[in-house]
């Protein structure tokens, strides 16, 4: 190849590059759309896990929504209060108090305490197992199956199967709500971090039927409801529930519970 060949090649490629550069530069100006500076700033503050716990498509989605005023500054469940405060500064809004929450599994029926109706040899996944006869192999149709769908869903390694039921690591939990969504038994609830009494049962079964399948289920005796001074405990459908807003963590309900399923 002659020297002119090389020059022509360089001119063609260089010319293409130059043309593209100028073209993109001009169209960049022409098609520029105004992005909110605050959006970038908010994105910098967010944790960046892209877990989707807020309900938006990743952290950038939430940042855009907050900047547009569609979402609240405290919408990130993972970042919690510190992140909410910093986003509040960017947006010029007082973040207010964000309470830290943790996931809690409303079942205490471990391998020993809750009987199995039959043995399940299928795919180790709660969603699959819950589609089997009587909603899974566990005698109690409301209880934790223990096949760990929530464990797989957790992006923070905060939930584990211990002795046949799911147990949340309170410190590691970021309350993103992934496990709440995935549990086919709707057993998992987000409760305030500082709440100390909780009902470790999800069964709406009547007392006698429940006793035949589980040693640690709520029978709906209403002793806790009667003894709670703050009026925080209500029993509905044979199942006690504690209202976190009213609960004073006095621990009376835990003391009075004949089945010892309210822990305090």
């Amino acid at each position: 190849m002659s020297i002119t060949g090389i020059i022509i090649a360089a001119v063609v490629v260089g010319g293409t590059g130059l043309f593209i550069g100028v073209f993109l530069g001009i169209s960049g100006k022409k098609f520029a759309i105004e992005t909110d500076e605050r959006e970038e700033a908010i994105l910098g503050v967010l944790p960046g896990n892209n877990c989707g716990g807020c309900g938006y498509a990743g952290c950038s989605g939430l940042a855009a929504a907050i900047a547009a005023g569609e979402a609240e500054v405290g919408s990130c469940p993972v970042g919690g209060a510190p992140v909410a405060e910093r986003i509040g500064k960017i947006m010029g809004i007082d973040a207010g108090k964000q309470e830290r929450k943790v996931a809690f599994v409303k079942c205490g029926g471990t391998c020993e305490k809750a009987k199995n109706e039959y043995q399940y040899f299928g795919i180790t996944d709660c969603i699959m197992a819950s589609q089997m006869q009587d909603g899974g192999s566990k005698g109690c149709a409301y209880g934790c199956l223990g096949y760990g769908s929530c464990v797989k869903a957790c992006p923070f390694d905060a939930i584990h199967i211990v002795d046949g039921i799911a147990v949340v690591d309170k410190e590691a939990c970021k309350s993103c709500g992934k496990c709440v969504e995935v549990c086919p038994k709707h057993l998992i609830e987000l409760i305030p971090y500082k709440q100390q009494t909780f009902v470790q049962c999800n069964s709406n079964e009547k007392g006698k039927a429940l006793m035949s399948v589980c040693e640690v289920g709520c029978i709906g005796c209403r002793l806790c409801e009667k003894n709670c001074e703050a009026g925080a405990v209500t029993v509905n459908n044979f199942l006690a529930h504690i209202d976190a807003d009213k609960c004073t963590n006095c621990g009376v309900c835990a003391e009075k519970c004949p089945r010892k399923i309210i822990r305090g």
Partner: protein
Amino acid sequence: MGEIQNLLLIAVGSAFVNNVVLSQFLGICPFLGVSKNVKTAAGMGGAVVFVITIASFVTGLIYKFILGNPNIMGGELEYLNTIVFILVIAALVQFVEMFLKKAIPSLYNALGVYLPLITTNCAVLGVALTNVQEGYGLLTGVVNGFATAAGFLVSIVLMAGIREKIEYNDITESFQGTPIVLVTAGLMAIAFFGFSGLI
């Protein structure tokens, strides 16, 4: 009639018989990377169809009027095809992204992150170069590009569907993750091999 029949044959040939992923092994990175669930896979496939169709048109134009033009250097500039096409495709994707962001935000949001990802996808460049190699004209090139991309869309969506099912399977630890995906891809390639007698 002959013309249309020819186009149809090329389309079926590049979509199924010479499937871009499963028999030419182009565009493997998005095929393995974004095939975890059907929805995102379809998004990626849609973006690829969009980009390849436009890219095969633009590169076809460039080849016809500059690189393959017998009046410039006697048509000897063909050896610059690869490098110029890379430049042009990258710029094109950038431009399309800018344009969509301004003009059709809804389409931009749907294609979203996948558009810039495709910039240097080998399937896009592969189609552009195949068009030149086979001596396709502009229309034939665009049809070939669209069909190839449609083949990509089909295979990545199938792959994502299979992967969603595999999630629940009890897979030996050493095969979890990428290995089982590669095995699956191999089996799919064998299945697609069945199309080879079609044309």
